[in-house]
């Protein structure tokens, strides 16, 4: 028994840790979708950009400056993207907004390609986070253990923020009914900006944790985690924060178990199989609200 645990614990730990990182990205997807009904295809690339900014910041600045800097710049990036690429299309059909999101994703990836010169950039090791620790005989990095804890703290804080504060109440109102909340005097643009800021803040922290584990950043390294986080959001019921977190942990764990069994090629495919199954069986996800179309 102890042999079995020792053999499989690293995969489980890695799964929980990756799951926490996916959860931090998934919240950005689910909040934006809840309010704008838009799949923000660029969110995964914002996540990658955060990793890349860290690479460049840490090259010339000490750690205690570069980490806050990364978070601030990423949040600004998300804010600017919303203002420039999505706000002018508020009344346009949904397809054009989605195309705009794909365009932004293409732009960020190409900018990253230009700044990195196409080479993988080594992610700086953040002291303390990347130290090795031993848990039940399994050797791993400290970041693996810390990630789920940080994730849970942030999620609880976010849920409290949405439930208790005035801005949170405005967010809930906007996600319920866009037009009515506008009539009630809610400044929609501010609420949407706030959503993007929170999403990008969490994505930046997710990126710091994720890349501490994976060591190198390439321009496309955001797209797969991005898609997986989106699937997690769909699984949990899009618009629901706890749902997205549960979905992300599930995907992270199962994916790493599949890797442990030796089917690495299919670890990505599993995510999409899960997506298609959930869309077939329960398109609203496990915590989603049922909606009916009116003619």
């Amino acid at each position, binding site marked *: 028994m102890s042999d079995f645990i020792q053999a499989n614990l690293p995969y489980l730990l890695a799964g929980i840790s990756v799951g926490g990182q996916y959860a931090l990205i998934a919240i950005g997807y689910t909040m934006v979708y809840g309010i704008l009904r838009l799949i923000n295809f660029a969110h995964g690339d914002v996540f990658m950009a955060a990793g890349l900014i860290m690479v460049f910041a840490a090259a010339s600045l000490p750690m205690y400056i570069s980490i806050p800097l990364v978070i601030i710049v990423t949040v600004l990036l998300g804010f600017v993207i919303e203002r420039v690429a999505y706000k002018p299309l508020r009344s346009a059909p949904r*397809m054009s907004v989605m195309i705009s999101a794909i365009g932004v994703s293409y*732009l960020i990836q*190409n900018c990253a*390609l230009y700044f990195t*010169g196409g080479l993988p950039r080594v992610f700086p090791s953040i002291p303390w986070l990347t130290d090795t620790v031993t848990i039940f005989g399994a050797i791993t990095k400290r970041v693996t253990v810390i990630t789920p804890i940080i994730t849970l703290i942030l999620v609880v804080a976010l849920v409290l923020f949405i439930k208790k504060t005035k801005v949170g109440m405005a967010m809930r109102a906007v996600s319920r009914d866009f037009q009515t909340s506008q009539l009630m005097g809610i400044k929609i643009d501010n609420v949407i900006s706030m959503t993007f800021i929170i999403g990008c803040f969490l994505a930046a922290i997710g990126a710091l944790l994720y890349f501490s584990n994976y060591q190198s950043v390439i321009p496309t390294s955001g797209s797969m985690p991005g898609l997986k986080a*989106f*699937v997690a959001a769909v699984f949990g019921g899009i618009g629901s924060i706890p749902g997205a977190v549960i979905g992300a942990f599930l995907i992270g764990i199962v994916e790493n178990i599949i890797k442990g069994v030796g089917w690495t090629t299919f670890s990505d495919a599993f995510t999409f199989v899960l997506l298609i199954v959930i*869309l077939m069986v329960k398109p609203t996800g496990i915590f989603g609200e049922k909606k009916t179309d009116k003619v």
Partner: protein
Amino acid sequence: MFKKINNALNPSLRHPEQERASRINKVGAIILLAILYVFLFVLDNFLPAGSFTGMLIPVLRKGAIYALLCVSMNLLNGFTGLFSLGQAGFMLIGGYAYAILSIPASQHAAVYQYFDGGAIQFSIPEFFSSFLGAGLGSFVGSIICIIIAGVIAALFAALIGIPVLRLKSDYLAIATLGFAEIIRAIFQWNGFGIITNGSNLLRKYTALSDIRWDIGSVSLKFGTVFVFLIVTICILLIVLLINSSYGRAFNAVRDDEISAEAMGINLFKHKMMSFIISSFFAGVGGALLAMYQTTIQSAAFTSAMTYEILLMVVIGGIGSVSGSGIAAFLYIAANEWWLRFLDSGSIGSIEVSFFRGGFRKVIFSIAIMIIVLFFSRGIMGDKELSITGVINWFKNRKERKLAKKINASKEGE
């Protein structure tokens, strides 16, 4: 009102003026195509190889292939209103089906070196070459392979469509994207290596350079002509479909699903039809791309490829076949030829320090964002390019200028 609709649909009831314009367009298109083919034939064979033709030929070939891919995506996204992002998956199926069926038997050991020569031990072009001669044999054989490639892609589409097409807008987009990723994972899996060669590339199959005709000592090349021939036929078929009653039904589904259903259009059947046909042509496009590249590897068919085609469709105008064609050629030419200097580090003899690898792509994506945000109708909007249209545009230019002047003077008051 009904009479008006009838007039638009039934060619025999159209106004004589319209009838004349349509005839001019048809005859003109045939003449222009004939001139184009003569030019391509000359380009393939008689123009001296230099840096100009060395760029022009690949750009024309790739542009034509992407034109077909764009039109096939436009059929689905623009004319039927199904926002699907599975294009790369169907291209992958088509390209692989083509390559697997046309690798010569003697080359199997070399290509499938990690899989004991693979499971399939025949080659369709080789079979035809055995009694038609090398040139004609590979011509007929590769056309048959391309058709099979399209059919296999369409079969996959039929299977995928049953669950996926019940979904709406963004859920459909993400599900098709997911299927494309699953297809890629399956093709990369070593378990199917005896057929797909696992994650290794496929090569040595019939490529565009093999499409030629040997007469005695003279060898005539038909590479570019072949690509344009297949692409023209495919786009023509799509245009015929769009203008048929099925095409009208697709448009109705796009504009309003509920009213379309109320008018007696079977939603699922028509969505399925559009999906399968679009995937067939994506498969054909994938096969042509394989021929153009001379090697093919599943790792290249990522979602970025689909995004690129989607952006071309947007640049050309969602819902315009000719727009898609123009955009594909412009995009490929700008990307592979005209904007190359942005990566090279200098304009002419002037050195510019920030012109280095990747700068072209940055400029390109900014241009695309500008089009998406400020010119969302693209080059053509939902209109089509026609000869009479161009003539009328030039005729009306003076009137438009005059109208502009009048408007300006009115505003001045």
